[in-house]
């Protein structure tokens, strides 16, 4: 399985500001995913990011709020824009097991607190 790292591991931010989360994979992967886990809730998919194309967002998530970049096959960023306390969550990136993508492997997550 791929080794995935995320930066930062945690942050405390003020409302109205933005935070960019980085996800680095130790091997080239086609599909990367960004999830959110709100307190006491399940993991919810925000968007799927394929290299060389626009990210595909799930219902309830929009590009203006969660812009994603995927400049190459080992790296992606998720920005949480104009933050409010409701954005306080753990944000996780994951990659699919290639070539069939049956499993996904997750990074350690970024714990975000918005005050």
């Amino acid at each position: 399985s791929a080794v995935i790292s995320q930066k930062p591991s945690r942050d405390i931010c003020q409302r109205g500001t933005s935070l960019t989360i980085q996800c680095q994979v130790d091997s080239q992967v086609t599909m990367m995913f960004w999830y959110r886990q709100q307190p006491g809730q399940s993991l919810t998919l925000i968007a799927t990011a394929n290299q060389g194309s626009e990210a595909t967002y799930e219902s309830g998530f929009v590009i203006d709020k969660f812009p994603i970049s995927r400049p190459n096959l080992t790296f992606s960023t998720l920005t949480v824009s104009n933050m409010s306390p409701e954005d306080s969550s753990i944000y996780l990136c994951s990659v699919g097991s290639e070539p069939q993508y049956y499993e996904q492997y997750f990074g350690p997550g970024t714990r975000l607190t918005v005050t």
Partner: protein
Amino acid sequence: DQQVKQNSPSLSVQEGRISILNCDYTNSMFDYFLWYKKYPAEGPTFLISISSIKDKNEDGRFTVFLNKSAKHLSLHIVPSQPGDSAVYFCAAKVTGANSKLTFGKGITLSVRP
């Protein structure tokens, strides 16, 4: 609408005994199911999976059972060890789609020494 449900938020078992974690789903299109384990301050770790063409998959101490007619799966851990104490997430997907996983809310397992 919660398509994957883990109705018991927590489970406590004695070391050496069996842990049974349950999961129900509502979407009959799901055909691949996974269990993840999550420790605090870490990302979820893939544990075991099962395809809908099977009703059982075993890997060491971990066995997953699938009952398609009941839309129910369970994870059995035998024997349970204190290091198994973690949050366990059930997830499901439709193969051939964009690999989207739908997760349950998780079960906190505590294994008492």
